[in-house]
């Protein structure tokens, strides 16, 4: 640990502290219908046609800190909570427990966010730029750049609902990077792009990271993670399995996925348990520098020299 005075944490861009996310969703499971409800409740459900609600734990106890210049890959099987984690980091949803701190507003590029399907790509560029808070002049300036990065040719003037999934992804990526966000969250958005676009988007992400930004990338291609990320996080059923160098995490994840695919549950379990036990648990401690309400008297506090008193800018 570096000296407290030098403020070794100046580089942190995103801090995720013990985040839990739960959803209550209707289930058509017959066993669920019979369970735990008394006669009146069941009758009411039958009459109203409502299904009983079950609790889905999408994320439990996720903690990590992302630093500037990192490109973090998220791996995990379907439904393991990768997209949920990105939505939470982007602040589009709030966790049931825990919190997320970020240096600037993260920008998320999702799979299915058609912005306004009726509008042409060009109009969507303007609208998207304005939605991110650019002024009309800045948006106007950004348009040619975005058009060029998207590389859609004349299709940019067609309604967005007529786009193929790859075309939509290209446009969304181009719009999202128009404002040069410091924190970029990409949820499989590049998966449908062709080779030419992959090249260009790589270059763009590189540039963002060099500007002290952080990129999160969800991809099912472990190879992509290995090649382009500096660090990887493996999620399984909402839990953090492993957090470390991309090569190592991606390799273990691949082994695990292979074992699952080959129907070797014991081997898969072994791999995951090993990873669990070797994992370095991260605890994120948030130091509140501005907390007028929870002010504790001076004499109860820890001695001043014990921890760096972070200064507000």
């Amino acid at each position: 640990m570096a000296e407290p005075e030098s403020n070794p944490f100046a580089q942190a861009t995103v801090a995720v502290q013990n985040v839990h996310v739960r959803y209550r969703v209707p289930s058509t499971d017959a066993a669920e219908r019979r369970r735990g409800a008394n006669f009146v409740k069941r009758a009411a459900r039958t009459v109203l046609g409502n299904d009983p609600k079950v609790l889905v734990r999408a994320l439990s106890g996720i903690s990590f800190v992302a630093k500037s210049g990192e490109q973090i890959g998220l791996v995990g099987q379907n439904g393991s909570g990768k997209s949920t984690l990105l939505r939470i980091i982007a602040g589009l949803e709030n966790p049931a427990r825990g919190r997320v701190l970020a240096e600037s507003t993260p920008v998320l590029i999702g799979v299915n966010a058609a912005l306004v399907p009726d509008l042409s790509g060009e109009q969507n560029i303007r609208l998207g730029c304005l939605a991110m808070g650019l002024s009309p002049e800045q948006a106007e300036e950004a348009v040619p750049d975005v058009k060029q990065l998207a590389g859609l040719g004349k299709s940019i003037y067609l309604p967005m609902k007529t786009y193929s999934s790859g075309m939509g992804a290209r446009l969304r990526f181009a719009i999202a990077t128009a404002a040069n966000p410091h924190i970029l969250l990409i949820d499989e958005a590049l998966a449908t792009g062709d080779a030419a676009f992959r090249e260009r988007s790589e270059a763009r992400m590189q540039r963002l990271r060099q500007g002290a930004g952080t990129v999160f990338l969800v991809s099912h291609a472990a190879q992509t993670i290995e090649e382009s990320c500096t660090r990887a996080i493996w999620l399984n059923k909402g839990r953090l399995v492993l957090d470390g160098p991309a090569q190592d995490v991606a390799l273990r994840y691949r082994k695990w996925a292979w074992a699952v695919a080959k129907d070797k549950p014991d081997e898969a379990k072994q791999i995951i348990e090993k990873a669990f036990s070797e994992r370095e648990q991260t605890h994120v401690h948030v130091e509140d520098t501005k907390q007028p309400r929870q002010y504790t008297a001076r004499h109860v506090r820890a001695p001043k020299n014990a921890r760096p008193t972070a200064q507000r800018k």
Partner: protein
Amino acid sequence: MSAPVPPPQPSSSATSADVADLYKEIFTGQQAALEVVSTGRLSQVGARPPIGTYLKQLWGRRHFLWAEARAKVTSGTRETLLGQAWLVISPILNGLAYYLIFGLILNTSRGIENFLGYLVIGVFLFQFTTQCVTNGAKSIQSGRNLIRAFSFPRASLPISVVLRSMLNLVPTLAAMLLIIVLLPPAEAWTTASLLFPIVLVLQVMLATGLALLFARMTTVIPDLSQLLGVAMRIWLYASAVFFSIDRFAEYPSIVGIMEANPMFMVLDAARDCLLYATVPDAGTWIGLSAWSVGALVVGFLFFWQGEESYGRA
């Protein structure tokens, strides 16, 4: 990167739960790393900003609001042959239909002087409120793509609905004024007509407040959107759109309720200004201002309080 755990300093700002977790982890022997971040540099994502900041953010997005409203106002007529012309044609046709039925065929007046003008003012102005309230209530649901893609103050969505309805109102008002001035019995411009814009402003404030109010209420109780249609119809009848309040002269309690109804006040004041060349009385002004300002303030505060919940809708 992550630092090994120094003898942890349970500083005063850590919650006791955090500290307990930390000790548990340390003593169960798993490796743990402590990351300290401070809220001086990082801020919580998705947190509801204080009301002043929120208003400022909203003002910062005014260009987005305007662009969104303008883009959507034409989206309903995009597929038609006449396109945007319908925005002007349809209110004129509506007005003519009323003229044909009530002015020429039925020739009823129900004891109302200039019944055509009375009816047209009632129908067109009430339609604006209906549009604002019902579309405002749906705005979070229908703006989900944008909510999932960008973080912006969510009040933008219901407010943009009101802006869109205002854009729709412009040709409608033109048609309304033409009917009043041109079709018999024609009315002349008077100085009282100059007060009409003030009535409109108050109506817009009322509608904005209600749009914000119902936007949040329907995210909490989705069933409300089903009830809203019925409620608006009842409100329509209670606002003396097609008939005169004099019908209820024998029932003072009904008259009292109707006169306290803000939409009745709007229509009454508008008719006074445009048809009867009288200045609306002080009671109407005071009552209407109280309703409008009250609705706007309550609606806005209520919506702002739920700011963190809309991502899940």
